[in-house]
């Protein structure tokens, strides 16, 4: 469970507010709660890759709904991180079809290379490894998702390459 801590005030950037208002306008008057899932995605992106209680309370206020309604939703869907994660989250599919073509080897390789287990973050805060269920890339496995990008038909070499590129970009 999370404790309230005092922090600087959470606020969306003005352009984000405009985007959110555009999304809300796609639903009938009074049905603004329908925008919740998308707003949570946006908030997660804007506020450091995870959803703190403060951020969720802010969204509740923004949409004029109860905070518990936001917690209920945020904790239901697997894409929302309710705890801090690394800068880059490696979401590797480990469902059947990907495993038929070697997903487990890829996961093992990432574990060994980064010295973390699924659910853990590297000590430098760079990578979090997450195993996820089917991402709809079964014919192009093994695969992983980083942010919005799918990386498919992975091999050990491709994986090493990818990790190096990310490391270099973030150094």
């Amino acid at each position: 469970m999370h404790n309230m801590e005092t922090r600087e005030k959470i606020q969306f950037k003005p352009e984000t507010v405009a985007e959110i208002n555009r999304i809300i306008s796609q639903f009938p008057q009074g049905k603004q709660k329908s925008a919740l899932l998308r707003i949570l995605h946006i908030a997660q992106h804007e506020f450091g890759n995870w959803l703190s209680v403060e951020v969720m309370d802010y969204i509740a206020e923004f949409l004029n709904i109860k905070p518990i309604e936001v917690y209920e939703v945020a904790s239901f869907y697997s894409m929302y991180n309710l705890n801090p994660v690394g800068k880059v989250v490696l979401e590797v599919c480990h469902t059947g079809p990907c495993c038929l073509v070697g997903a487990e080897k890829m996961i093992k390789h990432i574990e060994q290379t980064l010295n973390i287990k699924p659910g853990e973050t590297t000590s430098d805060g760079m990578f979090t490894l997450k195993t996820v269920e089917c991402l709809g890339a079964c014919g192009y496995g093994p695969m992983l998702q980083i942010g919005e990008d799918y990386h498919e038909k992975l091999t050990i070499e491709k994986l090493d390459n990818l990790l190096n590129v990310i490391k270099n970009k973030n150094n």
Partner: protein
Amino acid sequence: MPKVTIDGVTIEVDEGTTIMNAARKVGGEIVPPAMCYYSKLDKSGGKCRTCLVEVTKGSDKDPRPMPKLVASCSTPIMDGMEVSNKTSQKVLDARKGVVEFLLINHPLDCPVCDQAGECDLQNLSYEHGTEGTRFEEKKRVFDKIDIGPFIQLHMTRCIMCYRCVYTADQITNERVHGVLKRGDASEIGTYIEKAIDNDFSGNVIDVCPVGALTDKTFRFKSRVWFLNPMDAHRNCDKCSGKAVVWMFGEEIYRVTGRKDQYAEVEEFICNTCRFETKDLAKWTIEGPRHISRESVISQGHYEMQPLKIENNNEETK
């Protein structure tokens, strides 16, 4: 009015009545058990699957049987519908399965549970459960959370009936708890450490079919079957003031709503009555609360005991 036949008993009911409520109109053996449905709570029902029944004939118009068992609490009757509850082996088997599912992760800590003796799950298990378990895995556990000074939450005992959530939504003015996470990790919680505290929050205790939500002011004080439940009322500016006070000698150990034969309260009561009015002088005792003869609570034969209760209640005069 449309007719429905349940286990051979035919009855006329209003259009839109569910199979469960039609059965309750008849009463007795043909009523399916309910762990999540609560007639006073909108949207409740359909979840626990203990009330599954077999529809052997859809209606006079379309006599085909329904392919699957249906939840009697959320399936409306059709004219000419024929339903098997206790007379269907399929239903009894399914119910046995459901009871097993409800119990595999349940701690079975009845000896230390305040709900014991008035627990719907206990009753259901006696009737439909089996001896022993086939579950060899570790039982699910949850982090303990504190939801305030009056209500104790034991998440491990919860069967996810959602009644307490609907109660908070429909009876209280602000809901601060809900269902978090999903699947078998779902839990009732507030997410942040927050007390569930408003005038009617205590009703979540009465609607809880198991010992997941219990009265902190009554915690470990006594087993319910050692107490004498008495209908009582008082003048209350928040609720009807009609309650049951559970007495040990001359002392009130706890206060609850008045529950009917389906363990549903007749009226919701406020927290002041429930938690803060334990002084006998503040209540007018009407007489013993009738409890089913099958209940362990009846073992005290309290209804037969002459009780010397002096009503010196100032408030009610």
